[in-house]
Structure formats: C-alpha cells, structure tokens
C-alpha cells in the first residue's frame, strides 16, 4: 500500500537541545492555531478532543447521578414489604430509565470519552483524527440523553425495561410514545458511540508518535481500540433492532408480530447480539485503566504485555459468541444452549490471564498503595465474585432456576460496578491531576473508596440470597409473608453509604480543583506519554511530537525526551504515521472549529425526534442533514482564501 516516497523524514544527528526562548514563541504560535474560539460560540464549535471528552465525562457523570437517584428511590420503595411510596407505573419507569441511563448514557459514553481524552495524548498526537465529527458525536449523545430524561420527567418515560422485550414493548401492549422514546434514544447514543469508535481507531492507527510500533502501544490504547472495534460490530445490531421496534409501532411492519410471520425472539437475538458485547464494551476500557494504574503504582512494566493484549482481543472475540446465554429460558434448542454455555465459561480464561498478570506485576514490583491502586484492588475482589456467579449462571439448569430473579441483579451489578465503576473511580484519581493540574485529596479518596466498597457489598450481596429465595426482579413491592423483608431492608441500608461515598467524591473534586496539591507534569512518575506534557495539557497537546523507543517511554529516557521537528505551526498540522511501525508518512492539516457539526447534530435530532410521531421524520432528517453536510464541506473563511490564493498562483 505504501509507495517509496513515503519515508522521507531525516534523522537529525546530535542537534543541541531546543532553547527556552524559541520554545515560548512556539507555544504561542501553536496555541494561536489550536485553541477554541472564546465564549459560547467556542463551546458550540470546539474541535479540541480534550474539551469534548471532558464534556462527555461530566455529562455522563451527571447521568450517573440521576440514574443513581432512581436507584435510591427503588431501594427506598423495596425497604419494607407492601410499601406504597411509588406505584407500579412509576416503578416501571424508574428501573427502565435507571438501566437505560446507566448502560447507554453513562457507562459506554464515559468509557469511550476517557479514550477520546487519553488516546491522542498516549499515542503522542495533537488531536483525534476527525475533530469535527467528534463535536457532532457529543451533541448527538446529549440530545439522546435529554430525550430520555425529559420524557421521564413528563411521565412518558419508557417502562418496559432496558431491553424492551416484545411483545410487551410492541404496539399492542405498550401504546403511547414511551417505548418510541426508548428506541430513538438508542439511535442517538449509538450514532455517537460509533462516531467515537471510528475516531479512536483511526487516531490510534494513523497518528501514533514515530517509533510507537504496534508492540509498543500502551495497554489502555489497545483496550480502547478493541472496544471501538466491538462497538462497530455490535452497535448496528441494536440500532437495527430498535428500528424494527419503532417501525412496527409506527407504520405497522411485522418484524415482531408472529401473526404475520414475524418473530418475538428475533428481538432478543438482535438485542443480545449487541447486549452481551456491550458488557465488554464497558469492561475492556476498564481493563486498560487497571493496567495503567497497576503499571504505574507497581513501578515496573506490566508483566506479560503481549499476553494481556491477546487476552483482551480474545475477550473481544468470545464476547460475540455469548449472547444466547441471556435467552436460556426461551425455546432455544438444547445443543445450542450447550454451545453458549461452553463459550460463556471460556471467557473466564482470558480474564484469568489478565488477573494473574496484574498480580504478577504487583508481586514483582514495588507497589505504592495510593488511592487509585485501592480502587483496583476493590475491582479485583468484586470482579472475581461477579465472575464466579457468572460461571454459575452460564450453566443452563442453574440459570433456569435464577432467571429473572435478584440473583441476576446481584451478578450484573458485581461485574458492572465492580468491573467498570471501580476502575473508573481509580482512573479519576489517577488522571485527575492531568485533567486539572491538581491532585485529588488522598484522605477523602480513602473515605470515598471504603464507603463505596462497604456500601456496595451491603446493598448487592443480599440480592444473591434474595434471588435464591425466589424474589423476581422488577417487582414494585412484595407481600410480607414472603419473608424477603429483612434482606431487602439490609440492601436498602447499604444504599445511603454509596450515596455518601459519591458525595465525598464530588466534594473532593470540587475542593481539589482550587485547593488540591499542584500536580506538575508527571506526579505519579508514570511511564506513558500523556505525562510528558503540561497538566492540564495545552490546546495543542505537545509542543513537540515525541519519538518513542519502548513500551514505557518516560521510564526509558528519564531526563530527556526525544522529539521530532518540522511540523508546521501556522496551521493545525498533525503527523500521520503508518499502521504497523508508526514510521512518519506525511503531515496533514486538520480542520478547525466549525458550527456545522452542531448544525448536523440538530438536523439529526429534528429528524429522529420527528420520527417518533410521523414517518415523515426520516425524509425531514435527510433533507436537513444534507444541507448541514453541504455546509460542513463547503470551503469557508481561511480555507476559501487559501484555495483562491492557490488558484491565482
């Protein structure tokens, strides 16, 4: 694919270190090119991966808090038998919006947003590959979230569970617009996720710093790339599925209507073909975070780097062969069920490899037990518990007993909160200094961790027992005679501890923004490139693009960073390198801020929301999106002047 002219970068022999004054003017020139426009318009037009990722993170965290409030109300309701704080209709909306928010508006976006922030910095480039598309993705995601929550606050929130099974969610049993809001929220968030996935893949493939061959790519970047590929292959399934549901409801198609040749299990197949990989889409970035934290705090390169990468890839592949284990209680042939049991048990192998590699790294390193590592240890404990119940319910006879009971609720909260939220909190403590330039408080961090860890176990461990005692999930109350009152009360008593823990975290974040210890470039003495630039990073990321000689670049060249020269500073130029070896290939001037991605997001929103009510929403969206895309493409401002100048010469 490459022609001979590709590599023309010349090695500079023994050039003296760049002097200070030159550096200051360089910073100014770069900032002039790369910073956002000021004010509100700058907010709408930003193409800086850091500000967009930060917005994603804050927005997703707000949705986490909102969905947490839902969970709190549910625990309050279930605290004693025959409770009537909320009625059945509101309760249905509470758990549907809780689950949908946590999965679609919190977990996936925040995990990929961490990638949007750190992948470009870790591979040593100035921005993601398609900066304007990134802006479009954020606003599309935001509209989807607002749609769901405004619907909920208007008492038209979806009420059929986060997977909206038919026939319950079909036109016959769920009239009104509640399910349509759910289906279109999916459309919004999946468009955003797929956009982000392409951003991350192309950035990691084509914009790595020279020398960062595939073998030297940090594990967090691998994790985000593998996740991005999973998004590409999984998300179309749920978009197609929710579209079938929406048009069955809107224009009378029969995808899920058995009377006219449709099939209700088609929905379950398509949903879980997405839904199971989804779990790993949330979990694999967390593995990357854990690896980053373990490496830094064990003060040695990760043990078994290649084995780790292969395990994550294996997890990514096997994740697509598990979906039927969510459907063991349906009329699937038994031979098929056995296959999916085997595949489900198999996923324990790559997970085990990773757990052992982390333990080996910590064992042979010189661990520092700081707050980020604390969260990682919490993760390992909870994830092992969740993994063990996972192996149990992979077995068909056991699954049939506990299907749709609180045992399942306990299991997936252990794997999702233990497996993703704990590493995420660890990542917040680890990378907060890079995001803000200040350290988070260590004491509050300890409180944050222990309250969460204890509160989580008090809340969710009893649910295993409730499930074994037969308590079904998604019931708004239960009679006293069932004997479930005590354990439910215990579970509900754990919830305030979790709430207190999150409150401590918010206080910590708020206080540390102004009063935290100043972090400097690399407060943890970490080995990867995001720590080779200022905290918070300048608009252009790196003043000079670094050159990489190993897997842990900042540990290999401790006092001197090898860099490249020759990128233009009078436009937004990035270095494009080749996929395998990251050899310099060409320089490329990226697009700057523009309002058109936002306009495209508005156009898409108009079309998608209109199609809740009328089939004409789709053509409307097409027309508006075409206008927005043409506006996006058409040369304006500086580009127009340059083209005109080019024509004259």
């Amino acid at each position, binding site marked *: 694919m490459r022609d001979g002219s590709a590599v023309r970068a010349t090695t500079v022999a023994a050039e003296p270190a*760049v002097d200070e004054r030159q550096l200051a003017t360089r910073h100014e020139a770069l900032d002039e090119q790369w910073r956002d426009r000021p004010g509100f318009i700058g907010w709408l037009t930003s193409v800086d991966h850091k500000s967009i990722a930060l917005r994603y993170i804050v927005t997703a965290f707000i949705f986490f808090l909102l969905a947490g409030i839902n969970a709190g109300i549910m625990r309050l309701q279930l605290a004693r038998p025959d409770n009537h704080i909320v009625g059945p209709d509101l309760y249905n909306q509470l758990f549907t919006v809780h689950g949908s928010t946590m999965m679609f508006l919190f977990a996936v976006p925040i995990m990929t947003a961490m990638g949007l922030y750190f992948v470009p910095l870790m591979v040593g480039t100035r921005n993601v*590959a398609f900066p304007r598309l990134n802006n479009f993705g954020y606003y599309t995601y935001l509209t989807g979230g607002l749609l769901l929550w405004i619907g909920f606050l208007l008492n038209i929130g979806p009420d059929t569970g986060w997977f909206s099974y038919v026939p319950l969610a079909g036109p016959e049993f769920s009239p009104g617009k509640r399910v349509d809001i759910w289906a279109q929220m999916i459309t919004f968030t999946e468009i955003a996720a797929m956009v982000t996935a392409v951003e991350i893949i192309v950035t990691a493939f084509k914009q790595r710093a020279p020398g960062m061959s595939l073998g030297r790519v940090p594990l967090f970047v691998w994790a985000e790339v593998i996740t991005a590929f999973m998004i590409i292959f999984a998300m179309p399934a749920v978009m197609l599925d929710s579209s079938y549901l929406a048009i069955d409801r809107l224009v009378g198609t029969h995808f899920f209507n058995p009377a006219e040749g449709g099939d209700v299990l088609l929905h379950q197949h398509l949903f879980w073909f997405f839904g199971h990989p989804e779990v790993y889409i949330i979990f694999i970035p967390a593995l990357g975070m854990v690896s980053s934290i373990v490496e830094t705090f064990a003060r040695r390169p990760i043990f078994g780097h290649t084995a780790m990468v292969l395990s994550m890839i294996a997890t990514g592949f096997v994740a697509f062969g598990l979906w039927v284990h969510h459907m063991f209680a349906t009329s699937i042939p038994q031979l098929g069920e056995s296959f999916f049991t085997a595949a489900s048990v198999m996923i324990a192998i790559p997970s085990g490899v990773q757990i052992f590699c982390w333990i080996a790294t910590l064992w042979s390193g010189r661990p520092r037990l700081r707050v980020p590592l604390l969260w990682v240890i919490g993760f390992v404990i909870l994830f092992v518990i969740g993994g063990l119940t996972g192996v149990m319910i992979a077995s068909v006879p056991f699954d049939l007993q506990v299907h749709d009971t609180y045992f399942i609720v306990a299991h997936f909260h252990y794997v999702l909160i233990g497996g993703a939220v704990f590493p995420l909190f660890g990542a917040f403590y680890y990378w907060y200094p890079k995001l803000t330039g200040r350290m988070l408080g260590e004491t509050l961090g300890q409180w944050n961790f222990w309250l969460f860890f204890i509160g989580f176990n008090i809340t969710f461990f009893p649910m295993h027992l409730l499930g074994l005692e037969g308590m079904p999930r998604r019931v708004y109350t239960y009679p006293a005679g069932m004997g479930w009152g005590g354990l439910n009360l215990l579970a509900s008593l754990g919830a305030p501890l979790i709430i207190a823990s999150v409150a401590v975290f918010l206080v910590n974040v708020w206080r540390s923004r102004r009063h935290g210890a100043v972090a400097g470039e690399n407060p943890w003495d970490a080995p990867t490139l995001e720590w080779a630039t200022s905290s918070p990073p300048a608009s252009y990321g790196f003043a000079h693009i670094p050159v990489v000689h190993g897997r842990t670049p900042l540990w290999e060249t401790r006092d001197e960073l090898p860099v490249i*020269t020759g990128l233009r500073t009078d436009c937004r130029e990035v270095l*494009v390198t080749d996929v395998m070896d990251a050899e310099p290939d060409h320089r490329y001037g990226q697009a700057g801020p523009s309002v058109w991605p936002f306009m495209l997001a508005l156009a898409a929103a108009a079309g998608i929301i209109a199609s809740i009510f009328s089939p004409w929403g789709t053509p409307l969206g097409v027309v508006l999106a075409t206008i927005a*895309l043409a506006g996006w493409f058409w040369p304006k401002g500086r580009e127009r002047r340059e083209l005109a100048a080019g024509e004259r010469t």
Partner: protein
Amino acid sequence: MRIRAVLDVHDLPEHAFGSRAPIWWGTIGLCLIEGTMFGLAMATYLYLRLDSRAWPPLRTPDPDLLLPTINLVVMLVSVAPMVWADLLARRGGSKGAVRFALILATVLGLAALVLRWFEFDAFHVRWDTNAYGSIVWLILGLHTAEILASVLEDVVFVAYTFRYPLDEKHRVDVSTSAVFWYFVVGIWVPLYLMLYFTPRLV
C-alpha cells in the same frame, strides 16, 4: 523535561492517497458499520424465513427479475466512472476531467435511484402485509439511502469543482468517496442474490 530533536519531518508530503490517508481509514470504518448492518438485515431475512412454511409467504408471488437486474447492471456500470475519477484524482488529472467522471457517475447513480423507485413494486408486497414485506422493504430502503448519500456527496463535489480549484486535499476526498461508492455497489450484489434468488431455491 528537556527535549532533544532527533527527527525532522518537514520534507514529508502534506497529503497521501489510499490507506496512507486517515480519511481512507475513516471511510473503511463507515463501511464496516454499514456492512455489519446489512449483514444483520440479511440474517433477519433468513431468520424470518425459518418461521415460514412458504417463502415468499402464501399469496405473495416471487419477486420480478427484469427491472431489478437492469438496476444491478446500472449500478455495476456506475463503478467505471468512479474508478476513472479516482485514478484522475490520484494522478493529477485536470479538474475538468475529474468533474466529467463525477458527473457521469452521478447520472448513473440518479438512474439507479429512479429504477429503485419502481424496484419496490417488483416484490408485489407492502411493508405492512407480512414480515416478508417488512424486511424486504427495509433492506431496499436502507440501501436506497446509501445510494442517495453517495449521489448527494457526488453532487456536492461537482458543485465544488465549479467554484474552487481541485487542490490535493480535495483530490484525496474524491478518491476516498470512490471507496464508499464501491462499497454501496458491492454490498448490493449479495443482497440482490438473496432477495431475488433465494425465494426461487427450494
């Protein structure tokens, strides 16, 4: 940390075609997403068939062959001007020549859209008649949207060439948009075979 310059890149070119360009990878990403979607739509079609004793279901005749086949040929032919535009863009062909190739491709794309309008009738079924009608209309509709998107992209390129010079950046764009065109035509081949020939196989 002190820095030390070890590599100078100012001699490198400012643009590159094909898999050297980030936009090419972005387009491949888009094709993977759309390809997965069509793959799952095909899976739906075949899955629904499992539930049906007759396929197409009773009282629905087999789809017509003539017009859909003509349309397939039109689409396949439209690849030729796109390949030509791609080569011209890469090899520094004149703006006029690139524009001519793009107009040719656009005309063929529009012809495919017009034929597609009538192709919906070739199935003798409405989307709300039965599940067979639903999935057939869905596949046709999705693919029509792909053709429409490619044609609109071409129209914008043509309009651009009337107003501005064809610089290197836009040459890369033309060359990359051809990749998406190949995908849109290429994905139709298995879909065409499935939609029109699997009902005829027992």
